[in-house]
């Protein structure tokens, strides 16, 4: 089976900024593939190239085995794209937006209703409401419906859950799972690490480069070294103390704990705990923890920068 998306040595620069530096990866058919990375990593540029909106400087990019430059017209018929910012007609109603996007693809709402039914039933009560007056979560659902209404084979979602409340985010990802089961390949970007865990595979992107590609379960294995979670009521002082400690390679805040990675080969986290306690952090809570995607990402980032 041909991959849904195949990218080889793709590069793209804007004047002075290198947005993408010779990246390569494949997304299989029916795969939910996540792009994780901070703002400015080049995710949106990658989406614009894949959706035939921007031309690459070099490299081979194929979607459903069609070239994004030569076969752009055919590709446009067979993909769905949800840009990062809400881009439906705010002054048209929910039903009118959906109808418009169905008709310009030469189809009707009825024809592909099965695909969007689960999502659209939630929108139906607001059918006659202008899209601009929907809540953030509802807007995203409508945008997803509009991107799906022509039954695309590949779906591109650029940060679909940014600015959406946690409940809607969860629902949104459940929908993606269902769409994946329909056989639609999905490329989704997100700045949220918890969402990354819901993908089949993820690529960590930073400054136009892919740091690592793996499944969420195995990507944790990429982390090397010992990781200690610590907490005190003087968090900021604790953070600076740990960052300056010779045993600590890096330290970041994760929720209510600080995660400190020890230097390569050093497994003796208890002596670090003692040391910190002696420095006046009497209420210190510390335990060894397993690395999550975020930790892996941070480690890869600092290695890439070194």
């Amino acid at each position: 089976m041909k991959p849904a998306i195949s990218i080889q040595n793709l590069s793209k620069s804007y004047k002075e900024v290198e947005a993408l530096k010779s990246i390569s990866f494949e997304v299989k058919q029916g795969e939910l593939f996540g792009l994780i990375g901070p703002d400015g990593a080049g995710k949106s540029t990658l989406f614009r190239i894949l959706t035939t909106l921007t031309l690459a400087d070099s490299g081979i990019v194929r979607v459903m085995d069609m070239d994004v430059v030569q076969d752009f017209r055919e590709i446009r018929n067979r993909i769905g794209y949800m840009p990062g910012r809400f881009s439906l007609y705010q002054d048209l109603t929910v039903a009118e937006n959906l109808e418009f996007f169905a008709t310009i693809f030469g189809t009707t709402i009825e024809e592909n209703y099965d695909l969007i039914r689960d999502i659209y039933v939630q929108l139906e009560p607001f059918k006659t409401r202008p899209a601009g007056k929907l809540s953030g979560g509802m807007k995203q659902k409508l945008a997803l419906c509009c991107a799906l209404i022509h039954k695309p084979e590949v779906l591109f979602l650029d940060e679909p859950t940014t600015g959406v409340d946690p409940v809607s985010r969860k629902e949104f990802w459940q929908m993606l799972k269902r769409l994946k089961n329909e056989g639609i390949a999905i490329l989704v970007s997100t700045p949220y690490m918890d969402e990354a865990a819901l993908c089949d595979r993820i690529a960590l992107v930073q400054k136009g480069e892919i740091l690592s590609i793996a499944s969420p379960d195995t990507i944790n294995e990429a982390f090397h070294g010992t990781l200690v979670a610590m907490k005190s009521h003087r968090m900021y002082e604790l953070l600076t103390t740990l960052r300056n400690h010779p045993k600590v390679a890096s330290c970041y805040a994760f929720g209510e704990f600080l995660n400190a990675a020890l230097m390569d080969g050093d497994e003796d986290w208890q002596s670090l705990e003692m040391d910190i306690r002696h420095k006046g952090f009497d209420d210190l809570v510390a335990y060894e923890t397993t690395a999550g995607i975020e930790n892996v990402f941070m480690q890869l980032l600092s290695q890439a920068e070194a």
Partner: protein
Amino acid sequence: MRALPHIIRKEFRQISRNKVMLPLLFLMPILQLMVLSYAADFEVKNVNLVVVDLDKSSTSQRLITKFTASDYFTLVGSFESTALAMQEIEKENADLILCIPKDMAQDLDKLMPVNVQLLLNAVNNQKAAIASNYSLQIIHAWNTDRFKDMTLPPGVLPLTVDIRDSYWYNSQLNYKTFMVPGILAILVTMLTAFLSSINIIREREMGTIEQLNVSPITKFEFILGKIIPFWIIGMLVMSFGLVVAYLLFGITVSGSLFTLYAFLAVYLVAILGIGILISTVTETQQQAMFITWFCIVIFLLLSGLFTPVDSIPEWAKILNLFNPIKYFVEVMRMIMLKGSSFMDIRHHFLVMVGFAIVYNVMAIRSYSKTSG
């Protein structure tokens, strides 16, 4: 092309949702026609007259009466010297001084030439020119009357020539008749140019253009989907304006309506092309508004709506060859007032077809470039 009807329907839906735009489309023709036609009137009334009568004869009195009897002049005072009368002009109390020289009646009886002096306040030069014109007509009439009363010696003919102007196509030289076709032309131009230039920018600002660009809609379909709705609106607004012009001023189209609409049809395509071209080279609705405004004002001032185009300098005349509004104002006046036929405006028509093609080809090319 199968997506085109859907794009047009979407466009009309959006226009119908716009709570400002829709009423404006129908209020503008009424208000503009009323305000511009009534207020921007060049007819001058209430010229304040000051008289310096040094003759004080029945002849001079008759001349003064001739002035005051007309609707245009109001006698606000009479003085013994020109210097005193000038003070009234300084104080802005008077617009015109009529100076009648000493012994005028006697000199006239002796058939000697007499100079009557008119001093005009030319701060408002238009008013002064028109007041001077009225005054000369009155003096001329007074002079003619005088000869009628006189018994001339045999063999002497009265030294007057009766000149009468006759204004064709607008026999009463009615200012409104002259202005209304031009104002209609401007109105339709402004509405369509602004609507089209803002529209595409709006799609870009709202991000909706991204969604359209990843759809199978072609650039040609997209531009056409923008032109057709506004073209229809332009046609409707013009029709509405013609009805208003008839109801308010009783102005009808002397020539063929078909010729008028045929020209309008091509003209609108040209103007919409300019609007879309502007929207492809700008980034925000504000920029598009300013550039459209700038273009329209330049085109408008050169169009001959307010001032005769024949008196502008050579370089501006060359510039004016590319001014679509000038052609349209001319054609509107030719068809509405003069009843010109298609053959009379065929030159204008061909030029407009050229504009329509050039501007739209530029618009489509420019759109392709900006959307990568």
